[in-house]
């Protein structure tokens, strides 16, 4: 088969089984867009901004486990995509991002729409490739998908000069069946001796904790994790990124840990003697002040990326390997060896945890005059039977969504945890909806975040993507306002958002449905009405309490044992 470079690129996407490409055309990718036009298999979603394309591909990937694919033009197309690429990089999401480049002979001449896409994206990709000739395209694409999806996943950029995709140069096409890269060999196993030591240590614990993260979702090892946790009977806490890997409604789950984690999760961490950390990276939002982190614990850390181990926290038993393989080995060893921790110790530990739980650290002050954002999230959970895909943006609403929507299934909670990218929620929701058209997809957002990628309401209209937007509108950059209240004596510097649009009219202008909800008594009814409209995107503008804060909170420089609780903690239900 003889094809042009542009056709080869699209054919290679077909051969990879790609369903959707999220993109935006421009001069350097016109040959590629012509190849897209002349086939049916790969569907192109035209976004309104390249950042939206990367977030859509990212949401699609998080909800399915498949790589997300993006196609943008050179120069501003590439630079606009960078925020989304960095978002995927920090959360280890596999993307293949194709950037057009100016014609090869003009590279380095400051040509129109020229930017060094390889240089610009280098610090925020897993790897990037510059295509050097048309006959390299197929093998580079194969490598790009391989690198993006294996080991610790991540975004890969492929930069292709326009002349290599030209229609008049035809070359033989054959998509490689295998990849051989001598410099890239992702690990699988996990040192057998280390795994054995870990299981022995777990059996000696008196006050154990299991701390899980996004790696469990990435490696599809949530079932193995659940089996292990239940076999041991130990408490499980999760990072923001790992929510849903272990069912939130299970009695062994003690909630999220870290800066806005529960009292029982954080004190469990602070007082544990053995910590099993799986698929996590000891992020600063999780550990708090490192000096105070788990002062009495022996730590077992399992991760596929050797650089995650001992980066922020020293560990006692490091295990580098695919979580699925390592957790399966642990289960096998536990099946062979009946030695377990002393049940009395574990029962005593659970009694302590229940005591911490009884503090009700997530209780908030109910109101019948002003809408509490936590209440809205609880109602979203009820109305969707806890079964929706929930995306979010970044800030207070993100934390409330994480705290009050109880995720029982993996890949349902989709947010920008590492980079903290405002603007992520709406486009990500559209990507999720394309992947799961029959499922409810909710974007829990705020009036500030939603405006960062608001233009994608137009994309939703073009492709008929009926997601539900829950806008927790408190007129402030809420998390900034909260920090200003706590740390800057209430000097609210530039955190008040004056001049908001009428979100109802705005939604209607895109032929969506808009709702404004101002009374607590109307919340449930509005949600039911909105979710009943299966074919429509409904933008629900909830006017919420502008003074509400996220609790508990570990402030900068503090440890897990120094949480700032709701001022009325103990009196609330």
């Amino acid at each position, binding site marked *: 088969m003889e094809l042009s470079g542009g056709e080869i690129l699209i054919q290679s996407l077909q051969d990879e089984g790609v369903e959707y490409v999220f993109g935006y055309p421009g001069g350097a990718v016109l040959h590629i867009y012509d190849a897209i036009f002349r086939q049916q298999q790969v569907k192109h979603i035209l976004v309104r901004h390249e950042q939206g394309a990367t977030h859509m591909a990212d949401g699609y990937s998080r909800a399915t486990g498949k790589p997300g694919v993006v196609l943008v033009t050179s120069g501003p197309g590439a630079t606009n995509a960078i925020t989304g690429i960095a978002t995927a990089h920090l959360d280890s999401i596999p993307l293949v991002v194709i950037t057009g480049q100016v014609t090869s002979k003009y590279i380095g001449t400051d040509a129109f729409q020229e930017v060094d896409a*390889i*240089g610009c994206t*280098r*610090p925020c990709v*897993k*790897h*990037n490739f*510059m295509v050097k000739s048309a006959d390299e395209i197929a093998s580079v694409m194969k490598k790009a998908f391989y*690198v993006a999806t294996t080991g610790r996943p991540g975004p890969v950029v492929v930069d292709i000069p326009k002349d290599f995709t030209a229609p008049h140069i035809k070359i033989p096409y054959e998509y490689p069946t295998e990849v051989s*890269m*001598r*410099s*890239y060999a992702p690990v699988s196993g996990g040192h057998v001796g280390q795994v054995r030591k870990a299981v022995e240590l777990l059996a000696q614990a008196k006050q154990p904790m299991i701390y899980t993260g996004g790696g469990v979702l990435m490696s599809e090892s949530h079932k193995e994790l659940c089996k292990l946790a239940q076999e041991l009977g130990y408490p499980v806490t999760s990072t923001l990124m790992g929510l849903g890997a272990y069912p939130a409604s299970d009695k062994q789950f003690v909630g999220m840990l870290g800066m806005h984690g529960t009292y029982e999760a954080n004190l469990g961490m602070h007082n544990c003697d053995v910590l099993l950390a799986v698929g996590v990276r000891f992020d600063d939002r999780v550990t708090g002040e490192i000096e105070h982190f788990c002062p009495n614990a022996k730590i077992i850390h399992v991760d596929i*990326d*050797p*650089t995650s181990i*001992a*980066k922020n926290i*020293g560990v006692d038993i490091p295990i580098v390997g695919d979580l699925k393989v390592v957790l399966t080995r642990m289960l096998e060893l536990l099946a062979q060896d009946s030695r377990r921790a002393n049940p009395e110790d574990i029962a005593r530990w659970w009694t302590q945890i229940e005591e911490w739980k009884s503090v009700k650290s997530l209780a908030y002050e109910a109101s019948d005059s002003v809408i509490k954002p936590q209440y809205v999230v609880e109602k979203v959970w009820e109305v969707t039977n806890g079964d929706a895909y929930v995306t979010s943006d970044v800030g207070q609403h993100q934390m409330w969504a994480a705290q009050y929507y109880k995720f029982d299934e993996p890949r349902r909670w989709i947010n920008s945890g590492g980079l903290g990218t405002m603007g992520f929620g709406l486009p990500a929701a559209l990507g999720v909806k394309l992947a799961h058209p029959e499922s409810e997809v909710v974007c829990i957002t705020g009036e500030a975040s939603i405006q960062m990628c608001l233009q994608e309401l137009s994309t939703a209209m073009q492709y008929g993507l009926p997601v539900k937007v829950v806008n927790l509108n408190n007129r402030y950059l809420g998390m900034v306002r909260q920090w200003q209240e706590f740390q800057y004596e209430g000097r609210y510097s530039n955190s008040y958002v004056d001049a908001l649009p009428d979100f109802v009219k705005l939604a209607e202008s895109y032929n969506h449905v808009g709702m404004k909800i101002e009374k607590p008594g109307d919340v449930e009814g509005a949600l039911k009405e909105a979710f009943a409209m299966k074919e429509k995107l409904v933008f629900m503008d909830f006017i919420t309490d502008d003074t509400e804060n996220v609790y508990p909170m570990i402030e900068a420089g503090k440890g897990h044992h120094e949480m700032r609780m709701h001022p009325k903690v103990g009196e609330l239900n």
Partner: protein
Amino acid sequence: MSVSKHVVSLLLENESGALSRVAGLFSMRGYNIESLTVAPTHDPTLSRATIVTSGDDRTIEQITKQLNKLVDVVRLVDLTEAAHVAHEMMMIKVRASGVQRDEIQRLSGIYKGKIVDVTESTFIIELTGNSDKLDAFIKSVGDEQILEVVRSGVTGIARGERGLKV
């Protein structure tokens, strides 16, 4: 933890961009880089680089792990962990006129230097060895005599059977 100097040797894909990935990693993560040398090996598809860096044990562990993670890095070894040779080459242009000419020549001889260029008023001396030896030579010549110094940076190799191969 105490900070110590390490000589890390790597084999890289000999491709454009590979070196900037290595250099970029150091600046991005705030690691020290004292010197970096790189050139293709006898296998033209591979380059070999020697990096002199410093840090405490945990930092050095991160540096080697992060370097290994780069897709273009094929193999890596911290030479400092065992016996190795780490040399650099220096060319030093010195003022050499009148009585100084004999003195410089004598000094160069002591350090096993090679005079590679002679003019009426200057010499260029080429010197190879470990960095301490080159430092000592510079000190012996003295600032007043030195016109220019160029050093290659350290290149290193492990002694004996230990080594860095694909």
